[in-house]
């Protein structure tokens, strides 16, 4: 039962402080939404968790991950700081789907997803049945099997996004970080993607953190929501407690109507207007 714990996390770009001591804990089987306006530090938080930004202060640690991620057996502490892992070890625990990624040269969808197997399969090649099976199941899960042999340069934005998610799943991560995964997706695929997130966590052994601007999707699909403003977490709790008309007014400057909806079995968020003062 994997856990991710962020304690007193601070990060600065040069002299400019971005994150001012964040504390978050995310548990197995949770889909957590990270909300906040542009520049509030959401993506920076993800980048500190996945060690893209190495110079962060404070601790980012994981506990109770499966032992097979380690290259060499060693004594495990209760909480292992994420910076104590090697690149390959870390990539078996954490997978990130970036907001903007592109392929510089044309690979097939299959090859692209297979790259996610790099840290697990190492030098195995396509003749390995078990590996192929794993790649195919990732393709199937994200609904991109139909164009597995197509070139990634021929894909639409939404298709490409699903390829990136399949690639992250191929890493068999226990922590999945998604930076605005629904961006560029049509409405149908946005819901499909969030359903996919729910399906993944339902299997257990994985937690998902999603940076998003979509309050509607966050309210509906996230177990828990974190709201960030100017590098601090100002709210952290179950979606239906955090996403309120007051919070939306205060943080996003929007008038809204938030209500429980029996039909969707969750909160429905309706944005009305900007608040002018």
């Amino acid at each position, binding site marked *: 039962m994997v856990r991710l714990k962020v304690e007193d996390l601070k990060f600065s770009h040069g002299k400019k402080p971005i994150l001012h001591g964040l504390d978050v804990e995310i548990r197995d089987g949770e889909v957590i939404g990270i909300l906040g306006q542009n520049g509030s530090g959401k993506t920076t938080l993800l980048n500190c968790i996945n060690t893209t930004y190495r110079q962060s202060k404070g601790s980012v640690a994981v506990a109770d991950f499966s032992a097979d991620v380690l290259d060499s057996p060693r004594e495990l502490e209760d909480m292992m700081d994420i910076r104590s892992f090697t690149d390959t070890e870390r990539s078996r625990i954490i997978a990130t789907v970036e907001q903007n990624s*592109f392929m510089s*040269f044309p690979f097939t969808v299959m090859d692209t997803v297979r790259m996610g197997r790099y840290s697990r399969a190492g030098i195995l090649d396509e003749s390995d049945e078990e590996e192929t099976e794993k790649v195919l199941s990732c393709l199937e899960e994200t609904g991109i099997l139909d164009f597995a042999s197509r070139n990634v340069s021929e894909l639409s934005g939404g298709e490409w996004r699903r390829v990136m998610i399949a690639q992250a799943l191929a890493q068999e991560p226990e922590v999945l970080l998604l930076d605005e995964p629904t961006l560029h997706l049509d409405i149908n695929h946005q819901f499909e993607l969030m359903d996919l997130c729910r399906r993944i966590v339902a299997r257990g052994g994985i937690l998902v953190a999603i940076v998003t601007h979509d309050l509607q999707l966050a309210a509906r699909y996230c177990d828990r929501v974190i709201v960030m403003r100017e590098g601090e977490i100002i709210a952290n709790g179950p979606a239906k407690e955090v996403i309120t008309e007051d919070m939306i007014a205060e943080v996003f400057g929007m008038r809204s109507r938030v209500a429980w909806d029996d039909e969707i079995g969750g909160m429905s968020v309706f944005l009305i207007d900007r608040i002018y003062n």
Partner: protein
Amino acid sequence: MDGGKVIDRAVRAWMEPEADVEEEVRTFQRNASLKVLFIVACVVAAFVAVGISVTIGDYSISFVDTYKVIFDHLLGNVTDSMGDYVIFTWRMPRILTGLIAGAGLAAAGCVMQSILRNPLADTYTTGISSGASFGASLALGLGISVASGTVAVIANAFVFSLIPVFIIILVMKMKGSSPSVMIMTGIAVMYIFNAAATLIRLRADSETQAAIFAWSVGSIDVTSWSAPETMVVFVIVGLVALMLLSKKLNVISTGDESARSMGVDAETIRIIALVIISLMAAGIVSFTGLIGFVGLVCPHIARLVIGSDNRYLIPASAAFGSALLLIADIIGRVITANNDIQVGVITAFIGGPMFLYLIVKSRREAW
């Protein structure tokens, strides 16, 4: 697709959910064998080109006989001693130089494009060419070299061609090793070296100027075994090292941050690959001078045919580069009687139109 077919397909997908998967896997495996086929075709083309190339010269040997003489020699059972002498003393060094240089330059260009994520990159993008030119100009024009005697120009070109790379690595240590830092530093260093080389050329007499010019155009016209023997070490070691990196190079194509997420440190790989490419290219360029185009275009043509997977693309580029360079050399020697046209000129004349044709004809968007 008409209505009936849609229903058929839906029914089939429902009845046999595995059918689509199998088809995808089959398509994928077919693609993999196509890639191998392309490499084999290039090797065969190079093999035929060797035979043709050996026939060119004053002492006449027929196309079929050339292979007989070559195999006799390799088996240590020489029957035609005159043919053996002509081929292995005079013609083979040039042919092998062409094969080795073509393979090395194309593979190096291929990897340079991958690590810089830039289709316009080639072996020379990081200033190897300007460093080598400056080193050669220094030796030819002013007689200043790190070595003396017959290897003065070669040794100087080799040493100076590596200076821009050292500068780039220094800058990358300070500013991070993003592709744009590499390219911009490479261009800055290139201008400095080119200016210095021009200064030497301006002060040289016309004979020296001609020698420097001839060097800079690049040719595989060597008559001693020392060139191919030295080059082959650089190229084989380089190719093996690049092949070992090929999976990591694939992962880097998704961008530094994605690569990091998948467990590959793009910055480190970029520096390692840069050092390998530079040594390989320097080992070639110091003997042949600047043969352009092979490093830029061969990887692209290979990529259009077989896709971007570096595990296949590196050997395919190398095989294609070998064949192209040797064929270009044959054409250069056949169309003029004694005054051979430099091989770099011909590669551009063949490769350019071929490349244009592929850009226009290729259905898939390659970049």
